Every structure is written in C-alpha cells, then in structure tokens.
C-alpha cells in the first residue's frame, strides 16, 4: 500500500487486473491472493472501508462512550435496535467486522512495507544505476561542449556531485549519482510507525484499566475494585496491577462568571486532594484541575465532573436517626446546576422512608409561573423540594438498585399526604402524622474521578511522533538521480551530456549542478537548456 512513489519491481504488475491463475494449485492461489491483498487498489478500498465503517460510530450511541444512551436507543427502537446490535453497531470500534477491515489493511500494509524496506536497504548499499543510453530523453537534460578532455570533466563532475552529497558511481565514460534516500526512509518509517501505533493501542487496551469513582468532600478511596462505581479492565488485566495508592477529597471549588451576559459560565474547577502512593508513604497534597491530572502509581487521575451532595438527617417516627449523610445529586441542568436525587432511609421505623428531591443551589422564586428556579450554579441560597414516600424500599429483595432512583413507587412505596415541602438549608421538615422528620443540614460538593492506567500511552506517542516525522521527510525529500556523460566530439572538443530524474516533480538542483559544472566555461552558443524548450 505504499506505492506512492515507486512501484517495487516485484509489484509492477498488480496495478491492473491480473489474470487469474489457472491450474496453479493452492500455492498459486495463495500467491495470487497475497498479491491482490497487497495491491494498492485493495489498500485503497480497505482505507475507504475503514472510513465508512467509522461513521456509524458517530451516528449511533456507543457502549464504550455512553452505555446509558444505548439502552435508551434500544428502548425507543424495538425492532431496529436489536438488528443494529447484532451487527455490533453500538460497539463499532470493537466489532469483529471493523477489526477484520483494519487487520486486513494492516496486513496489506505490512505486506507492502516490509519487502520495500528490504529493497530500499539493498538500494542504499548498491551502486547508483548506470546511465541510460540517451540522456536527452530524461525529464531534465542538458548538453554542452567544452575544451577540457572527457576524463577531466568526469573527475570534476564526481568531485562536484560528492560535494553535494550524492552517492557517485563510475560508468563507461559516464558518472552516475543518486541521493535522497531519506525520502523513502521517511515513507517507510511513516507506515511502520502506523503498525507500531496499532500494537501500542492494542497493548494499552489489553493491559490497562479505567475506573470511575464519585467522591464527596471529606471522603476518600483506596485503589481497589471495591471502591469503583464503574470499572473497565483490559482483557489481560489482573487486580494485582492496581497500584496501592489512596486519595481523599478535602475541598472542591468552582468559579463562575458572576455577572454580565455569561453569568453562570464556569471559569475554573479545582479540587484539593490528599493522596498516598502506598499505605505507608507520606501524604501529599495536589490541586486537581481539569487539564491537570494527578499521576500516581503508574495511573493518572482526572477530574471529570462535579455536582452537589446536600447533607440530610432523617429521623424516624420513634425519634431515632435513620439516615445522616451527604447524598450526591445529579445535575439536570448544567447552566444553573439544578440537580435531583433521592434519600433512602431503610432504617426508619415503623416504616421505611424515602425522599425524592430537587436541589437549587441559588433558589429564586419565579413569581409568574409559581415555581422555583436556580439563578446561579454556585450555592448562594441552597434549597431543596422534597416529596416523601413511605413503605418498603425493596432493598432486601436482593435486586441491586440505583442510588439515584426510588423503585416501587405506587406499589410498595406510597406517597405521604402532605409530604411535599420546600426546605432551605438549616430547616427541618416534620413529617405529618408523626412519621418523623428530615433536616437539610448543609451542602457539600461531589466530584467524579476517572482513574486510568494505559501502558500503551508512551509507545503510542512515540509511534505517532515517528509517523509525523516520517511523513514530513517523505514529502520533503525526493530521490534524485543524475548522470553525466562526456564523449569526444568534433575538433578535439568534448561533448558533455547531463540527465536528471527526480521522483515527483523536478527540482532546481539539476540546473544548479549544470551551472556549477560549466562554471569555468565561457557561455557557449550550443546552449544548455531545459528540455521543455525543444
């Protein structure tokens, strides 16, 4: 697939449609198939298939990026959804058919690049090819006469071309020179680097891991599976690869634009965290920000998201504390950080209690629509609205429940009459009929962290840098061949012919060489000109 510049001798044929092998047996067919696969036409088609195959990944929700949206999509498209799923269209970049395309492409690439590397290695060590018979038919050529004898002219040409860092070889009455091997080296390096990149990405995915954790201010975690809310290990991952660090969130701050048109736009997020590399290591402090991950124990920790975790105390009908803590709420509107969440108090007696709540960091009354709004994302006037439920939370049934949702409303859980209330920070709502009370104690913030270990990261970076250097070099350096032939002419003069062949477009170097060769000559009317004039 790297025939960009030069078709290797062995592959001069497969450009067109090759005749199918007849009666060649298995080997013949294999060879034919291999040549088809490594032909440029196939490589081009595979390139387009890769491009085309990626497109559904941007149109349909993907499990790797947004699993919840995939579920939603499947819910909405009951007939189409399962079919798309069968074609792995919600997992395009892990799909077998996508892997088939890129593996074929990379085999095709390897099948082309590796023989070419060998070939180029040989070309670099062998003599530049001898001069063609008729130099004037080359894309660049010049012809002039001189009084100096042939040997002298050739010696001068050799010296000049060597000085210009050409590799020079002597022929019969001629000199052959070649330079610009770096172009092909760059080209090969680019393609080989892409192969390395693929392996690095694959290795990273196999041996690495990625996990998400939600922390509220004051809480912490140790790097073990039990703490992760979501954990995606690579296939070759084993839990003992988890570096034994621990981390605690002290404080999270968000700054917002305070006034003007962009009021409420976030300016900066910053989390003060304390961490230990090992349980016995000294505690260090880090200011975790977006774009400033914390590197610890081979993993990197990123600040992904934040939100509010209002703190409540729930007392049951008997006056006992049934729940006390900060509960992360999910933002439903990021401009104002209006958030919602639930509080579950399974310890409440005689009946279990649950609250569905909306939280406004800066509550203001919208008098026209008789509703509460949040005017600003920072907690200037934190207020919650509560809906109370009592009954059975269903936590003992064994089915796992989301901490963000109440299950069984209307079935096992009944709304409490008169159990809706707007509560400002510090206020207590006493539930009707002596069912208990709930106090809105304060407002904390939570952050979500992504912990990521990818051993392929640095090799991938190195390969990417090599690829870009390779492509630049291959575009900038062109292989040039130049021949000088000197033959005795009429009247004791010597006829000098110069021919040049450059891959791609000719360069001005040829004219420079001719001019340098003729430096000592008086301008002869026979003329040395670019052949386009002829």
């Amino acid at each position, binding site marked *: *697939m790297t025939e*960009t510049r*030069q*078709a*290797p001798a062995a592959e*001069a044929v497969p*450009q*067109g449609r090759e005749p199918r092998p007849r009666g060649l047996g298995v080997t013949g067919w294999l060879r034919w198939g291999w040549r088809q696969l490594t032909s*440029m*036409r196939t490589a*081009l088609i595979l*390139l387009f298939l*890769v*491009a085309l195959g*990626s*497109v559904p*990944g*941007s*149109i349909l929700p*993907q499990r*790797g*990026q947004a699993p919840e949206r995939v579920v939603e999509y499947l819910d909405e498209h009951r007939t189409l959804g399962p079919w798309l799923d069968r074609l792995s269209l919600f997992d*395009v970049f892990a799909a077998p058919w996508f892997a088939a395309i890129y593996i074929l492409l990379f085999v095709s690439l390897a099948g082309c690049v590796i023989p070419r590397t060998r070939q180029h290695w040989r070309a670099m060590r062998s003599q530049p*090819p001898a001069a*063609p*018979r*008729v130099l004037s*038919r080359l*894309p660049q050529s010049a012809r002039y006469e001189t009084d100096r004898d042939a040997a002298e002219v050739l010696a001068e040409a050799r010296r000049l071309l060597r000085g210009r860092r050409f590799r020079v070889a002597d022929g019969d009455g001629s000199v052959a020179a070649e330079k610009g091997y770096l172009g092909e080296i760059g080209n090969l390096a680019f393609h080989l680097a892409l192969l390395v990149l693929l392996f690095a990405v694959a290795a990273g995915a196999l041996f690495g891991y*990625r996990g998400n954790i939600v922390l509220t201010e004051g809480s912490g975690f140790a790097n073990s599976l039990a703490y992760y809310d979501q954990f995606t290990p690579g296939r070759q991952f084993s839990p003992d690869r988890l570096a034994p660090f621990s981390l605690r969130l002290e404080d999270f701050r968000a700054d917002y*634009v305070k006034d003007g*048109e*962009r009021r409420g*736009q*976030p300016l*900066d*997020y910053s989390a003060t965290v304390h961490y230990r590399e090992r349980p016995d290591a000294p505690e260090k402090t880090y200011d975790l*920000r*977006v*774009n*400033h*991950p914390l590197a610890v124990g081979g993993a990197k920790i*990123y600040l*992904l998201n934040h939100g509010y975790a209002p703190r409540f105390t729930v007392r049951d009908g008997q006056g006992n504390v049934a729940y006390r803590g900060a509960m992360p709420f999910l933002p439903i509107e990021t401009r104002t950080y209006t958030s919602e969440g639930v509080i579950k108090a399974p310890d409440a007696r005689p009946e279990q209690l649950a609250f569905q709540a909306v939280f406004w960091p800066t509550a203001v009354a919208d008098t026209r629509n008789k509703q509460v709004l949040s005017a600003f994302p920072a907690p200037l006037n934190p207020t919650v609205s509560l809906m109370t439920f009592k009954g059975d939370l269903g936590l003992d049934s064994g089915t796992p429940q989301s901490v963000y949702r109440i299950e069984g409303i209307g079935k096992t859980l009944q709304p409490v009459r008169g159990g809706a209330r707007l509560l400002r920070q510090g206020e207590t709502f006493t539930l009707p009929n002596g069912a208990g009370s709930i106090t809105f104690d304060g407002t904390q913030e939570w952050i979500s962290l*992504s912990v990521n270990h*990818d051993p392929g*990261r640095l090799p*991938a*970076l190195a390969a*990417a*840098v090599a*690829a*870009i250097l390779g*492509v630049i070099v291959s575009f900038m350096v062109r292989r040039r061949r130049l021949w000088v032939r000197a033959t005795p002419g009429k009247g004791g003069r010597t006829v000098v012919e110069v021919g040049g*062949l450059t891959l*791609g*477009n*000719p360069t001005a170097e040829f004219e420079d060489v001719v001019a340098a060769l003729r430096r000592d000559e008086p301008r002869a009317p026979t003329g040395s000109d*670019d*052949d386009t004039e002829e």
Partner: protein
Amino acid sequence: MADSDLANLSDQLALGAVLLYVVAMVGYALDLGFGRRRAGSAETERAEREAPAKVLVGTAGAETTETTETAKAAGAPAEGSEDDEPATERDWGRFAVLINVLGWGAHLGMLVTRGWAAERWPWGNMYEFLSAIAFAAVTAFLVVMARYKARFLGAFVMLAAVVALGVATIWLYTPVGPLVPALKSYWIAIHVSAAIVATGAFTVAGVSTVLYMLRSRRPAGETGGGTLALLPGADTLDRLAYKVTMFAFPIWTFAIIAGAIWADEAWGRYWGWDPKEIWSFVTWVIYAGYLHARATAGWKGRRAAVISLLAFAALLFNFFGVNYMFSGLHSYAG
C-alpha cells in the same frame, strides 16, 4: 483601550475584511475575465500535451510507472511565463492582490484584537474558529499565489472566505468571553492552531480540485469558450491541489496527534472515539487515500480528485455537522 472597545474594533475589522475581500473577489474575477489571456498558459498546456510523448526507458524498471508523472511535471517551468505578462491598461490582477492583502491585514487585526479583548487565544468558540479558518485559507492562498503564480484561484478563495466570515458573523457570532475550564490549556494554541492551518490549506486545495474537476471535463488543449477556458490547464490545477494537500496533510496529522495528547491530559484517554475524533480520523483516512490514489495507475486524475473532494466534505462535516448534530466532548463550541 477597554476590552469592550477592542471587541468592537474586532467586529468592525471583520466587516472591513469582508468588504475588502468582496472587492478583491471582483478584482480577481475581472482579472480572469478581462486580463490579457496569457501566452504563458497556452505554453504550459502545449508543454503538458507534448511531455508524455517523451517516454523514458526506465533505468531500473521501477521508473516506468512514474515516468508520465515526471514528464508531465516537466511542463512546470513554463508556468512562470504568465508572470511576464505586460501590464495592461487596467491591471485588475494587481489591484485585486493589493485589496486582498489589505483585507488580510484587517482580518489579522480582527483576530488579534479579539484575542486581546478576551485575553486568550482567539479560538474558543465556533465564531472565532471559523474566522480563523477563513484567515488561514486566505493566508494559504496568498502563499500559494506567491509561490506557484496561482492568482487564478483568487476569486474562488475570496468567495469562500466571504461566505465563511459571513456565516461566522451572522449565525455563529458570540460576544467576547472567557473559556470554559476544559479549554484552559496551552494545548489550545497547539492543537487548534494546527487544525486551523490545515483546514485553511485544505480549503485552497479543495478550491483547486473543484476547478480541476470542471476544467478536466474538457480534453486538455481544446480551447473552447466559457469561463473555464480562462483557467490554467487541468494538470496545473491538479498539481497545485496535490502540492497544497501534501503541505496540509502532515499538519492535519499533527493536529490529530496534538489533540490526542491534550485529550490524554484533559479527559483521561488519548483516543475515545468521540464524534469529533471519529470524523477527524475519517478525514485523515480519506486524504491518505487521495495521496495514495494520485500515485496509482487507474486512480489518478478525476478519481483521485473525487476522493479529495470527499475528504474535504468530511472535513467540513467535522466542523459543522459534528458540532451541531452530535453530542460529544467537543460540543462546547455550539
């Protein structure tokens, strides 16, 4: 000067740039239409027609495939002759270039004052981004014009720049403001600048390719009437598109890699198949296909040009489509 004054100045400079570009566009069009038909172009075409006849006996057998390529290129030096055209009474070309450079200066001023007013790199939202791309395209055109005598592209590049600035000002305008935290990184200067430069250059290559497609419908050398006959030969257009693409492709590659490094800093992974990542990858793959196709027998010429236009379409879609149709990590721009 207060930030708001600077911001106003930026908006006025944008308007000035648009007006100057419109005038330059008219100037370039007049130059194409009424400028003296250059002897040079005819010369170029003649050379191009004859060149393939010079069949080279390959020295190593490997050369045969690219002989035609090289031989065609041999016509290149003749291009220079169009510069020697004697000054006509009304030299619309020179006038257009002058106005164009003035417009470019206003455009530069617009970006600088905008960045100054916001106290950051002026590519934090779609308005700024599109303005910068238009600027990169005009810059790329000016460079190409100086290097390859490609004044004939002027009217078309001006049209593209005017449309881009118009769309930016009318539909995408965003008042000066601070960046969202995710964009606060020195990588914005590296990643976004590279993407802007590459997109600007790809735009010039795209314009040249469109003209090539139109021009190559007519067999080379046939001198028919119509506007198309005013353009240089199909091979010149094709070669120019190729050269500019060869410039832009490594920069685009770099933009993607820089984006990956930034993503690794900001989001915890260097590649996550976000819609923007997918489409920049698709764009990259199709341009890679074009670069290969152009050197492959049976694909070069119009087929390769179609691939190049597909790649450009993917590039445009990556800018507009992805930002407005899909939700992803890059969607703060909307």
